[in-house]
């Protein structure tokens, strides 16, 4: 049986998403928070039949270690509502990000974004998560998701 997430981990995740991206805390209130292995936080359906032993449920939305790391899956779903720490890429850099490459950003591109996990966008589309450190974006896109996109 999949375990429910602790109140503390749920609160820590929601507080982080609000503080870092300005996502409202009630945004995910239609769903249940579950605990995965190694600090994973999973968002899934409210009701899971207790007689079932699921392999997994819902969507991995974050991992809690020393801090909270949001998942690309989550940012692709709710990223259009994020109001800070969002960087919009041009076509070439968006293509590089989707391919899995790290990015070097200009001061203008960074604007008032602070170091830490960021949402990368292209046009209106939330692409996924990156880690901004001193103008350098470490690509956090899971390897299986990386793709050579020809049309964007």
């Amino acid at each position: 049986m999949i375990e429910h997430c602790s109140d503390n981990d749920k609160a820590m995740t929601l507080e982080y998403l609000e503080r870092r991206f300005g996502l409202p805390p009630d945004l995910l209130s239609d769903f249940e928070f579950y605990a995965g292995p190694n600090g994973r936080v999973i968002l899934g359906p409210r009701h899971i039949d207790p007689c079932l032993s699921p392999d997994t449920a819902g969507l991995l939305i974050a991992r809690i270690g020393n801090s909270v790391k949001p998942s690309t899956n989550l940012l692709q779903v709710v990223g259009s509502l994020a109001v800070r720490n969002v960087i919009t890429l041009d076509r070439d850099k968006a293509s590089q990000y989707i391919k899995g490459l790290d990015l070097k950003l200009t001061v203008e591109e960074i604007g008032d974004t602070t170091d830490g996990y960021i949402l990368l966008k292209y046009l209106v589309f939330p692409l996924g998560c990156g880690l901004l450190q001193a103008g350098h974006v470490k690509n956090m896109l899971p390897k299986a998701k990386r793709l050579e996109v020809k049309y964007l």
Partner: protein
Amino acid sequence: MSVDSHPCVGYTPPDMILQVPPAFAERYAPLVDDLAAFVEIMTTPLPKSFRVNTLKATTDEVTPRFSEYGITIKQAPWYTDAFISDNPALGSTLEHFLGIIYIQELTSMLPPLLVREELRGARSVLDACAAPGSKTTQLSALMNNRGTIVANDVEYERIRPLKFNLERSGTLNAVVTNYDLRSFPQTHFDVILLDAPCTSEGIFRKNPRQMLSWSPKRIAPSAHRQKQLIIKTFDLLTPGGVMIYSTCTFAPEENEGVVDHLLRERPAELEPIEIPHFRLMAGITEWNDLTFDARTRLTARVLPHHNDTGGFFLARIKK
């Protein structure tokens, strides 16, 4: 046996074209309305198709993007979210990367459509043979991420692509299980899809090499397993609930024969199937020396030359 030495091979490089095995054409001559058209289309490549994932975007948002790309797409007349394209580059689009479109065969979109109304109020749905997740993600979109879908598959190695596709499409209301259906815990669901493992004769257009291994000897063991699965799945249905039994094969033994078995063993009812602007062939009641329950006429077969699709079979079953 190598492809080159197989008697089905009519012409090889540059694009290997296989011929329909003569015994296959002979077997299904009594079943189809136009044997020449049926045989001809079986060696014609299947058009590419995709579904707009309405969890992430609307068709009105997606179609202009493809115009900008110069990729021609055509909306299916029977499903506003379904599109056909002869462009092989669908998998290289931003929309595919983001899970805004889901590359899916047209026939695979039919079972969820047949329970569209029931899904709106469903609290629990079972996709009994779910991998790789095409129908599960479509169910989730039709449910707008509400309720709970149990996406089950018996093959563990198919669970990983299933999870990947659920994640990419933003499916939040699904749980993944890995049971052999025959030992699935005794619980109940409002709606069930049983897209049963089958001899896959309907995917010859997608995978012509399947023709090389076609043999009528594979049909009986497949039907035997399907009869076990349909009984178990029906027993998981809430009274008043609806299930769709489907296969991607033509063999009546795996289709009407399996539904007939259910009607004999359980108090199941069949309901008529109609999809506006999509041509279906009514189920049959006799096949070789077999006679099926007269209600199997309410089942439906998709013949590839009727809608330029793969082959498929559908039954809508009420408890």
